[in-house]
């Protein structure tokens, strides 16, 4: 009997497939296409304390095996999310992760406090909408905050420590592949009370329009995702897994069940699926079916049997 259940930070996931922030809205849109309660979890659209309009100009450009995006964290803000999305999140039978970004340290802390307060209020009513916070210190598409915090361990430590103090909710920290020392950064997250590590975020990239002699993006650079980054993400998950005791939520270019297996073998506890949602609107269903089939073929009963075997 195949058991797909996984555990991260004391939270049980019915399977290891979590939809990545920025590719799944708050779940509402995909919920019209298939039953998203089949999923292990969803990480909602990246939130900031205040609403954010995002970047001007072109926001997406395809590259060989990849996709550059320059959305720039367009989002309605934490208060709007809590008021207008969480009532639906309460009804979702899957792990619900609120992805939190910020421009300043205070933004991060205030955002985490609001989510915690809302969580406390709902709990008194016997309800819950957010199961975990994913702290995004690694968005390459915002000029302030974002990746600036994600590069230097000392700067990131202050954010992780402050947010850890602001919330009792399970906390995963989403790291940037651009961190000066990724292992050091991950160890820091563990030291500061992070419950898990999400990696990797998109990789900063570029596309030049040679006739206009300019970047196609107003912000010059954009975040590369998709199959093109999978080997890098896999290597980083493997490296970090050797140095931390907290679970890793692995992601980067997953488009198949065997991609998921690779991340699990590299040491991930669960995985997130991002760009593949655009390639296949029913990606979640497809991957769950594929994973079961693969495990049957390989006589794997539980992912614990292969987790971190390399």
């Amino acid at each position, binding site marked *: 009997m195949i058991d797909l259940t996984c555990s991260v930070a004391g939270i049980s996931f019915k399977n290891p497939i979590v939809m990545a922030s*920025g*590719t*799944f*809205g708050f779940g509402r*849109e*995909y919920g*019209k*296409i298939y039953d998203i309660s089949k999923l292990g979890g969803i990480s909602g*659209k990246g939130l900031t304390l205040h609403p954010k*309009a*995002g970047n*001007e100009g*072109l*926001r*997406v*450009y*395809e590259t*060989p*095996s*990849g*996709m550059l*995006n320059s*959305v720039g964290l*367009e989002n309605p803000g934490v208060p709007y999310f809590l008021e207008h999305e969480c009532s639906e999140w309460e009804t979702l039978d899957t792990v619900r992760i609120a992805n939190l970004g910020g421009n300043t340290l205070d933004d991060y802390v205030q955002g985490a406090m609001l989510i915690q307060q809302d969580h406390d209020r709902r709990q008194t009513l016997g309800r819950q909408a957010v199961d975990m916070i994913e702290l995004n210190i690694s968005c390459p598409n915002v000029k302030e905050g974002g990746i600036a915090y994600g590069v230097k361990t000392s700067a990131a430590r202050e954010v992780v420590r402050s947010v850890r103090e602001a919330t009792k909710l399970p906390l995963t920290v989403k790291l940037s592949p651009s961190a000066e020392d990724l292992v050091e950064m991950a160890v820091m997250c563990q030291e500061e009370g992070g419950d898990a590590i999400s990696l990797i975020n998109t990789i900063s990239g570029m596309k030049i329009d040679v006739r206009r002699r300019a970047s196609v993006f107003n912000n010059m650079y954009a975040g590369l995702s*998709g*199959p093109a980054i999978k080997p890098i993400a896999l290597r980083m998950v493997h490296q970090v897994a050797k140095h931390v005791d907290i679970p890793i939520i692995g992601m980067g270019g997953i*488009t198949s069940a065997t991609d998921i297996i690779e991340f699990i073998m590299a040491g991930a506890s669960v995985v997130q699926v991002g*760009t593949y*949602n*655009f*390639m296949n*609107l029913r990606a979640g269903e497809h991957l769950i079916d594929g994973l079961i089939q693969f495990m049957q073929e390989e006589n794997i009963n539980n992912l614990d049997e292969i987790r971190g075997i390399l």
Partner: protein
Amino acid sequence: MGKVVSNVQVAEQVYLLRVEGNYEGSMGQFYMLRAWGHYPLLSRPISIFNKDDESIEFLYQVVGEGTTLLASLRPEDTIQLDGPYGNGFPIPEGRVALIGGGIGIAPLYYVAQQMTHTDIYLGFSKEAYLQDAFREVTSSLHINVGGYIVDDVDFEQYDTIMACGPHMMMRAVQTKYLQSNRQAKVYISLENRMACGIGACLVCSVSCLDGRKKACTDGPVFEAQEVTFHD
């Protein structure tokens, strides 16, 4: 998955694809088309050109890798269609004009099919195409090759105007509307790069007077005055 019935070139780099099946969809809505595996990554948003109980048609221009692959489709090939998506054109009132520019004529043909009478203005940069098809659905067809089709339309003669074409042309429609007596309700259909097509990814953002909107779910059809053109 749908089965290709035909895929006919109608002009330089312009193709008409017909897929078997009874598909849903209203005027101005689009489907996300995909006829390949993983690469290119994204499906292509293509508006409904025409449909009946047995088939649906898409008119598209070859501009990149995805549409090049679409152009290579042959009868009996399979294609994935997700949709219909988008808000589409509303049911028009009064005297109606349709203004299409280049491949932007695509969604207007299905509109014309639904209406008993519309005045149709089509503009092309190099060569006109599908004139005969449009002649079958209107007695008032005006074609302009090499000029500015928007200049040929008297906005004050109409109650409803629906337009689709290049970005600059849609901007010209907006400008002309704002300079008119604004009696007509003017709708513009915008094209944009999309990733998901269903409102989740936010890459097809459109600047509007009341903030950001999504071309895929809030559009592709917008009222002319609500869009903020930046360039």
